[in-house]
């Protein structure tokens, strides 16, 4: 560990948290319809799509529209992937994707997961990358923010029957937030050396006389939205470790910032919408503390390195396996931690090669439900669910029926929140267990022992939590994993989001109680620590036995000189 390393982490936090305040205020303005600088375009979109922007939706309408929209986009993407050979922008003449893999990929990009069971530069055409994957990166990110907007609105007033209009939210978020920031970021990326071209692979003759075919393509825009929308699906198989995705330490910093920006801005936006900024800051603080612990933990573990390599004299300063020399350890671990604290899942260093403890950090951050700060939108509504739990468990201790932001938390909300958490737990642990009981599942593992176990656990966690990162040792393109993880992604996204929209609908209808000295305070440091405690106990404890058998066991075995 070096002072420079710690300063890099501090710099990332300063840039992200500093930007969260103006960005949050801006997002609140977008969601409240106060941003109008591209109003003609916005109106044209509504007219083209036949959307009545005045129509407010009940939570059921909102949820149905969300499902419908996602289903249509899934079908569209599936068709594009299957038919990409016949579609334009295919200079490399890549064949259509096989049905199983196309299903997995279409689900993956529709659910904002971007789990990649395929090798992009060999299996996806430029056209499919742009029209299919990049478009979905925008839509699925905007859909997540829209769902969060619906949940946020539920707390803003009493006796509401509607939560806004999904189509309007998606249009505004895309038009006013995602597109402008991504275009600016993409220009910077191009300037830094990221390709944005329709030309096919470059051919290079090496000094030794060998011929190399170097993959390239329209990378820059997809790279920007991949981070900003916490999607994570790389243009190249090597993801952000590839020099064409992430050429310099500055693009690495920018991409880390993009990954975290919206996640931390949304609680601030929530505070603005509530007209109670302290509430938003409290949620942001809890997110930031968890992420900071994760960054510190992963950096410390990787900087300490692999004891066997150190004994062998192979390295003096940390675990460099799977890391880019041009970034160094702190920038690598921070990137990966940011990508797993969110639902991004992009990597610039390979988690499979991390020390067991270093790799446990991304795994645990995902298992906590991705709330530090979480995927765009999903992070906010997930942490709100934990806030409801916190208030419900500890709020009774002030002697009142628990309420959060003036809304009483009662049996219905608890039931729905519990259902959502159960879905996540069931898929992560159940999926891992089932896979390990089958020959097919065991065949996907590249390593034996606890490391192999971690690979499988990581895969199911990543899919269910819609993260998309992987321990690369897992061969995921099998019947079991393509379909199984596809189902995990679908349920992890929608079987989680819809109960939460239902909670929002139920809370919206309740009267908003004015705060009084007898109300449980949810804007101070006490609540922040309570919330963190509840996230760890309710979100993480159920995974502890599995994590003990995976990364923890491996760490202790490694120290005893045993590797897998």
């Amino acid at each position, binding site marked *: 560990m070096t002072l420079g390393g710690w300063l890099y982490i501090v710099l990332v936090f300063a840039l992200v948290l500093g930007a969260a305040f103006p960005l949050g205020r801006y997002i609140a303005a977008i969601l409240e319809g106060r941003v109008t600088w591209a109003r003609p375009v916005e109106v044209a979109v509504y007219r083209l799509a036949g959307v009545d922007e005045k129509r407010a939706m009940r939570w059921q309408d909102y949820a149905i529209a969300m499902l419908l929209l996602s289903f249509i986009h899934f079908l569209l993407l599936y068709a594009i992937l299957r038919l990409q050979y016949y579609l334009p922008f295919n200079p490399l003449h890549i064949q259509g994707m096989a049905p199983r893999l196309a299903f997995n990929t279409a689900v993956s990009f529709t659910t904002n997961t971007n789990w990649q069971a395929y090798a992009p530069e060999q299996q996806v055409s430029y056209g499919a990358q742009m029209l299919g994957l990049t478009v979905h990166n925008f839509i699925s990110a905007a859909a997540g923010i829209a769902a969060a907007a619906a949940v946020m609105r539920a707390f803003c007033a009493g006796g509401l029957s509607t939560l806004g209009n999904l189509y309007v939210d998606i249009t505004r978020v895309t038009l006013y937030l995602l597109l402008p920031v991504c275009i600016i970021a993409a220009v910077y990326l191009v300037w830094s050396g990221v390709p944005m071209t329709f030309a096919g692979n470059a051919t290079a003759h090496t000094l030794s006389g060998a011929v190399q075919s170097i993959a390239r393509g329209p990378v820059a825009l997809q790279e920007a939205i991949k981070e900003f929308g916490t999607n994570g699906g790389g243009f190249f198989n090597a993801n952000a470790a590839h020099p064409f995705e992430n050429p310099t330490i500055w693009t690495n910093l920018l991409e880390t910032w993009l990954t975290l920006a919206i996640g931390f801005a949304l609680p601030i936006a929530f505070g603005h919408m509530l007209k109670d900024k302290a509430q938003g800051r409290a949620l942001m603080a809890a997110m930031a503390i968890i992420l900071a612990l994760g960054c510190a933990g992963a950096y410390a573990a990787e900087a300490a390195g692999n004891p066997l390599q150190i004994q062998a004299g192979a390295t003096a300063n940390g675990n460099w396996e799977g890391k880019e020399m041009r970034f160094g350890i702190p920038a690598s671990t921070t990137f990966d931690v940011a990508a797993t604290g969110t639902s991004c899942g992009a990597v610039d260093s390979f988690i499979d090669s991390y020390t067991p403890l270093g790799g446990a950090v991304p795994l645990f951050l995902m298992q906590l439900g991705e709330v530090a700060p979480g995927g765009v939108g999903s992070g906010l509504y997930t942490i709100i669910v934990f806030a409801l739990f916190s208030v419900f468990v500890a709020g009774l201790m002030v002697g009142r029926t628990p309420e959060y932001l003036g809304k009483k938390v*009662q049996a219905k909300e608890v039931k729905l929140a519990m259902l959502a958490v159960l879905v996540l737990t069931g898929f992560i642990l159940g999926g891992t267990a089932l896979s390990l009981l089958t020959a097919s599942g065991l065949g996907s593992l590249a390593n034996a022992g606890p490391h192999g176990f971690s690979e499988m656990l990581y895969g199911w966690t990543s899919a269910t939590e819609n993260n998309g990162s992987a321990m690369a040792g897992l061969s995921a393109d099998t019947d079991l994993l393509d379909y199984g993880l596809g189902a995990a992604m679908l349920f992890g996204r929608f079987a989680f989001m819809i109960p939460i929209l239902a909670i929002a609908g139920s809370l919206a209808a309740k009267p908003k109680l004015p705060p009084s000295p007898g109300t449980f305070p949810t804007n101070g440091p006490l609540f922040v620590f309570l919330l963190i405690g509840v996230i760890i106990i309710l979100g993480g404890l159920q995974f502890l036995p599995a994590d003990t058998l995976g990364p923890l066991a491996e760490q202790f075995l490694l120290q005893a000189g045993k590797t897998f």
Partner: protein
Amino acid sequence: MAKTAAIALFSPGILRRAALDSVIKLNPARLIRNPVIFVTEIIAGLVTFSAAWSIHSHAPAAFAIVIAAWLWLTVLFATFAEAVAEGRGRAQADSLKHTRSDTMAKLLLDPRDRVLFKPTPAADLQKGDIVLVEAGDLIPSDGEIIEGLASVNESAVTGESAPVLREAGGDRSAVTGGTLVISDWLVVRITADAGATFLDRMIALVEGATRRKTPNEIALDILLAGLTLIFLIAVVTLTAFGAYAGTRFSIPVLAALLVCLIPTTIGGLLSAIGIAGMDRLVCFNVIATSGRAVEAAGDVDALLLDKTGTITFGNRMAAAFYPAAGVAMRDLAEACALASLGDDTPEGRSILALAREQHGIAPQMPPGGRAIPFSANTRLSGLDDGTSTYRKGAVDSIRNTLGAVGDAAFTETAACIARAGATPLAVAANGRLLGLIELKDIVKPGIKTRFAALRAMGIRTIMVTGDNRLTAAAIAAEAGVDDYIAEATPQNKLDYIRKVQAQGRLVAMCGDGTNDAPALAQADVGVAMQTGTQAAREAGNMVDLDSDPTKLIEIVEIGKQLLITRGALTTFSIANDISKYFAILPAIFVGTYPQLQALNIMHLHTPESAILSAVIFNALVIAALVPLALKGVKFRAIGAAALLKRNLLIYGLGGIVAPFAGIKLIDAILGLFHIFS
């Protein structure tokens, strides 16, 4: 019911019965209402079966037997907690039942004729029957007086032995079955069917026979059931993970892990906490018609309090003397005292008390003195002692009768007193104006700090009074209430409640008259006075047997205490999980990966002893917390933020730390006796 002497926390009689009941409650069909403990019972059964199988197949079974035994104890402690709580309620109900007697009622054949009646057992009376009750008779059932006036001893219900007056019409027309008519007679129309009287309902509620889960309890139950399911998934999938790692975890080990992780502590104590909350109200001589009402009391944001009797003593009292120009204070005080010597009203006595306490004047009745009582004609009272005449009365009356007008300063002082909401009395001696007495509604001492404490809890107090706006405002300011309703009528009380409720706040009030009934019904917590009318008692959701309106404040505190106890034990229970992981996880995995011994940070002796210690702790903590569940966590009016900090520290942090110590201690004791170590 005699003023319920708080039943000792654990009386031997209750414990004996509870021990038996706790076994009866093991019936799974009954236990299923409590999902956490139900799961624990199934697991205990499973481990028992596995132990039996081990014995049958001559495998080592000692560990399974011990784990099974402790799991059964866990379930038993939970059912025992509920049984004790119910037992305490039953003990209270028994003292109520004594008053329910097999009275013979005098059923009138013709309500207009009090001579012809048919003796009928009280149990056969029906709603609408008309009965005669004479001196020495027990009133056979609840009813409304339609004719007559009598003094009634209601100590059977209220514990208060002084008889109360009951008469037809007005606010004192309700009578309660089981109370005794001491003088005169009453004709009563029965208003409750047999078995449905007020007393019957009280007994049923106190016994917990009709106990239904409250909304908060249901929500908490869902959370606990959900947590149980989550940990069930974690433990079941663990078998597959073990299989991958080449280990087969035994049933007792997995059972121990599951039972330690699911929230058995709060699951076992939840219903006891609810029953005990109702019980605390009963000890306090307040009967709630449902647990929901007790819970609502904790949520109340606004209290409507009657001015008279709750905030003030109810009588105007002398507060100060104001001498007229040129009159010595001492002379005025003496004249006031003399003018009041023959005045036996509370006001007169308060004037004497003021003269004595503040001015040291306590005149005796002068020889030949003659008290002049208050007359409606002159509206004056006073004293003639042969040489002098002393008069006191309303300012106008003194002026009109004696012609003594007083100067401008005098007039201004009188106006000033009236503006402050008090009443000025003028005093004259021998036709000369000496000064003024300020008569004032005296606010009860300490009530202001009480209201401040309520405000810190986020509860607003609203004073309800028939006084005019001016007087009401002055007293409101003095008592420190947040708002007041002056010139209160049943309608504007109801309107006020609706207005506050429309802001999303919960309102509590108490009342006794029939005209209070709509407001009592509208309020979220309506406390009817036992002395009130039947209509009021039906409309409220609580009845105060002592008819003491100040109790509303304590009722709110009891409601809060119930919720706090539930929250505290839930937090404690969930926080416990962390330490149990550190006890059990290394123990069950160390066979697979010996290096995981490093996680055994408590240095427990052996895996078996570690698992057993966690299970024993888990069981004992339920038993250890039964007294807290029954007594309730103390409520402190220190504001939500401070209260949360305090309780989080004790039950949250304590819940994390305590089991580390407890499990280590149990392991040490097991080690001492070489049990599994």
